[in-house]
């Protein structure tokens, strides 16, 4: 297992100039034809935030201080994971003309897709920071931990993407199944609600959810201004490293079939 992964990773490193080209192209194409360009990336979380703030803060009356920050800090991270993984289901098909004509390590396409989503995540941190300023939410030194949380989330997204991409190329209805699952998954992750509203007997369901640990790792330094629990950090790290290794391994085993299928 290690041998094939090391070989695959080394090949990706050889093609890193292609990786950067693909990421730059993805980002460029995404913004080229829209008037608002980069602003869209910032507007989307803001609009979502307005909707969710009204629904959850007013209608459900969760008594969370600075609910918008509580929600948004988790939502941008969730959005990154859900966007990149669902893009990945289509990305091999999108690059099909290339895959049929030139040899390129296929993992590059998955990595480029996730990294271009990472650009989005970083851009969407701007409205979050503005909102924190506007609401007088304190900035703490532990914000320096945020990049670590982002790295963990990136590895996790890569792992999920690798697993999905290999399957989706064979069965295209997996895309719809996954998108439905994503919605359920989002509501099973304490993003819009605090974990203490979950009844005791269902708490294990939340705790078994890797996205809970990953979201908390990211949210704690931003919202509470504290380091996340060591146990939570370890759990999210274990999930993301494990899934990245497993997902990539599975992907590399299926990779030979890809050129026949696209």
């Amino acid at each position, binding site marked *: 297992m290690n041998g094939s992964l090391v070989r695959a990773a080394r090949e990706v490193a*050889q*093609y890193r*100039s*292609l990786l*950067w*080209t*693909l990421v730059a*192209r993805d980002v*460029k*194409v995404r913004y*080229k034809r829209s008037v608002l360009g980069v602003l869209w990336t910032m507007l989307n979380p803001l609009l979502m935030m307005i909707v969710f703030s009204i629904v959850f803060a007013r209608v459900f009356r969760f008594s969370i201080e600075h609910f918008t920050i509580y929600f948004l800090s988790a939502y941008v991270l969730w959005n990154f994971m859900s966007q990149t993984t669902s893009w990945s289901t289509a990305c091999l098909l999108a690059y099909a*003309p*290339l*895959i*049929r*004509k*030139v*040899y*390129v390590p296929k993992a590059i396409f998955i990595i480029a897709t996730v990294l271009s989503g990472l650009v989005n995540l970083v851009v969407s941190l701007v409205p979050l920071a503005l909102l924190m300023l506007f609401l007088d939410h304190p900035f703490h030194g532990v914000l320096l931990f945020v990049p670590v949380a982002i790295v963990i989330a990136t590895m996790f997204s890569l792992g999920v993407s690798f697993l999905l991409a290999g399957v989706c190329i064979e*069965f*295209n*209805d*997996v895309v719809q*199944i996954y998108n439905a699952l994503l919605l359920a998954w989002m509501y099973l992750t304490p993003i819009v609600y605090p974990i203490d509203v979950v009844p005791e007997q269902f708490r294990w369901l939340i705790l078994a959810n890797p996205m809970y640990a990953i979201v908390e790792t990211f949210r704690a330094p931003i919202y509470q201004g504290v380091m996340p629990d060591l146990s939570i950090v370890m759990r999210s790290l274990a999930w993301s490293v494990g899934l990245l290794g497993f997902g990539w391994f599975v992907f590399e085993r299926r990779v*030979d079939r890809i*050129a*026949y*299928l696209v």
Partner: protein
Amino acid sequence: MSVRYTVPHQRIPTLKEFAIRWLRRQLEWREFCALTDVSLRVAHGEAVAIIGRNGAGKTTLLKVIARVLRPGTGSVTTHGRLVPLLELGAGFDPELSGRENVFLNGALLGQSHKYMAKRFDDIVEFAELGEFIDAPLRTYSTGMVARLGFAIATDVEPEILLLDEVLSVGDVGFQQKCVERMDRFRRQGVTFILVSHSLAMVRELCQRSVWIEGGRVVADGPSAEITAAFEAHVSGEASSHDPVAGARVPA
């Protein structure tokens, strides 16, 4: 290298269908052999043409050599930088400018941005694109795309060049330039593997030809002999297929 692989004939596109068929035990795996027991050894600096009719497996063979397709059984070993030109314009993005596409294509061939920047002027000059290099690729004519593709592929100093029917595009002047460049490569000891329907070009460029029919090698030898045999075979078959409709006498 010895190559043999099979392509699944029938594809089940959805998981739902897969599950249903699996439950009904209706999963069939019919396979289609595009290439069977092909074994070739091409020496360094050799120019080899692959000839045969449509659907004989010529392009598949090139794709296997280019590592685009992995053989089901057997393996391919190549030594040196391999540059495939399986289809002109492969790996180009119509939304990007010609300039951006040069770097994208270079990256696809595993070249760094820095290297491509150094070669950039030569590439544009060879492709005769001039100021059009900054226009989006979707505005280019087929010939322009072809010239740019050829210019990039041959500018990265290939050691093995795979060409699939790509020399027939472009105007006469550009074709002349391509042939000149290929001649220079041949003197430098670049290995060529070329697929072409133009037997005249095969005889001019390659000393050796491999004739493929139905995924198998029929003959392999000096171009003059093999192309002549191939021509005789094709024309012989055409005349033996005379319509026999005249035999059907109306009642």
